[in-house]
């Protein structure tokens, strides 16, 4: 039977659920050995990606990528995380990246959805409205 990365990731998650400490190391070692046997090493990067997704969905974690023009203060960070948690009811993992191009505001990326609240985008809209 052909096993796809998603199934590998699920299996890994189930195995690591009960294990901890040195057991965890052994489980992961065995998993890698098994992968080698099945010729699945080449899919490693996909498996890692799927594992992250599966882990997050099982544990109720949502990863939010945000890019802004400058670093957030810790208060701002807290506020963003809190408001996302309020809406989604999930634990929020915030990854920030800096992009000077967007001038101000922020762009949030959750799964496949981009919420564009950047100053650049606002200016673009204003430009459109004024030139109409």
């Amino acid at each position, binding site marked *: 039977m052909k096993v796809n990365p998603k199934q590998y990731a699920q299996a890994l998650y189930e195995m690591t659920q009960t294990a901890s400490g040195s057991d965890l190391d052994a489980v992961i070692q065995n998993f890698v050995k098994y992968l080698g046997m099945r010729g699945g090493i080449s899919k490693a990067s996909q498996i890692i990606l799927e594992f992250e997704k599966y882990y997050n969905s099982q544990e109720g974690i949502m990863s939010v990528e945000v890019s802004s023009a400058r670093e957030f203060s810790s208060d701002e960070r807290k506020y963003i995380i809190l408001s996302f948690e309020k809406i989604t009811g999930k634990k929020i993992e915030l990854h920030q990246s800096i992009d000077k191009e967007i001038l101000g505001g922020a762009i949030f990326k959750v*799964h*496949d*959805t*981009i*919420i564009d609240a950047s100053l650049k985008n*606002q200016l673009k809209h204003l430009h459109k*409205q*004024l030139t109409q």
Partner: protein
Amino acid sequence: MNKDKIIENLKEQITKYKTQTTIKDVGSVIEVGDGIAKISGLSHAMASEMLDFGGGVFGVVLNLEEDFVGAIILGDFSKVSEGTIVKKTGRILEIPVGQNCIGRVVNSLGEPLDGKGKIKPDASYPLEKIAPRVITREPVTKPVQTGIIAIDAMIPIGRGQRELIIGDRQTGKTAIAIDTIVNQKGQDMICIYVAIGQKESKIARIIGELEARGAMDYTIIVLAGASDPAPMLYLSPFAGCAIGEYFMDKGKDVLVVYDDLSKHAVSYREVSLLLRRPPGREAYPGDVFYLHSRLLERAACLNKENGGGTLTALPIIETQAGDISAYIPTNVISITDGQIFLETDLFYQGVRPAINTGLSVSRVGSAAQIKAMKQVAGKLKLDMAQFRELAAFAQFGSDLDESTQKQINRGKMLTEILKQNQFKVMKVEEEVVVLYAAINGFIDDIVVEKVKLFQEALISYMQAQGKKVMEKIIQEKQITKDIEEELKKAIQEFKKGFSK
């Protein structure tokens, strides 16, 4: 307007402006190559939705799968790489159409290719559209005059019909289509020639010929050349049809030539196999029949309540070594309302257009023929059928009885009459007069070599001396007793001056 007013206005505009955040669905490319891309994410994508790859490159969703979507890339796919962010547009693939398209050469996306500048569109039409429903249609009653005597008499085409032109390579398939377009001058018809996977040199020649004959004034060429990627070839007939539908909805008559659907099927097979859809017979995907049936079903003759426009389709199929029982030819034959069958043997015997009158049929066109043509075509069909039966005996020559010999001789004459060079299109009244003379024995005493000469001389005589009769035929649309008398007299008069 003074300064303050302007500033006031600007302030008002800015205060009215509400800050808004835009929410977009995106995905990222995980695999790309050969004009197709596999994209992860895009969980809300629709089938045949347009995707924005950035940098002016667009794509179309074809496969919706569990973890990814399969899309074709339109245009330069070298700009797309792994990890490229892809945005949904929320629109089904559509192209700009309008009055300004006429006389232009465009690609499958409606972009101009002839270097004559931008085309200002009047509307956008979707490439894929459900064909007009039965309630909006009416039977085909108006003819498309192809200007080719063999077709107009024996395999008539009506406005709203789908007539297949089928034959091997180099048998004059395109020539028939081009002649038909040339003959539409002044007949209130908009022609669309869709070139699918054709050599660009051939297209350049065709455009030149059409321009020289003033046919580009009512013609649009949709070009997806042999060097264009398969997705563009696959979309081109739908683009041609969408442009045609715009004019049909305006109540106009439209003629669309798809040259040719064999190459279209091949390009669709390429796209399908790259998208890993399972192959079927001859490695074509299972939906190749639906591909052509949904395209040709969009040919229609709308009723008065729906504008009364028509869209006539002339698909072309290239066979391999005369094999009309291959997969694609049988499919398209069964979809269309008849076929014009061209043969290599006839072509080399000098019968051009090389139409096999025995195998060619038109299933609805005879209802669209004008009565005068019907009156002469009936006898012609009968004579030709009898000739085909007896043709095998022709080599026995003088051993045959008189009536058989007469029949064979008549057949030979008629075959000669039906020969026609390219771009020598004829008006319908000219066709009627020539056929009337042929089936009523006026040419039986002329030597075969001179039949063509007789025909040409007769036409020019009728245009000069017999103008009245010709006009009467157009007016009455039938050969009444009076007209017949006059016609007979005129032809007899002409024969006196013609040296056999």
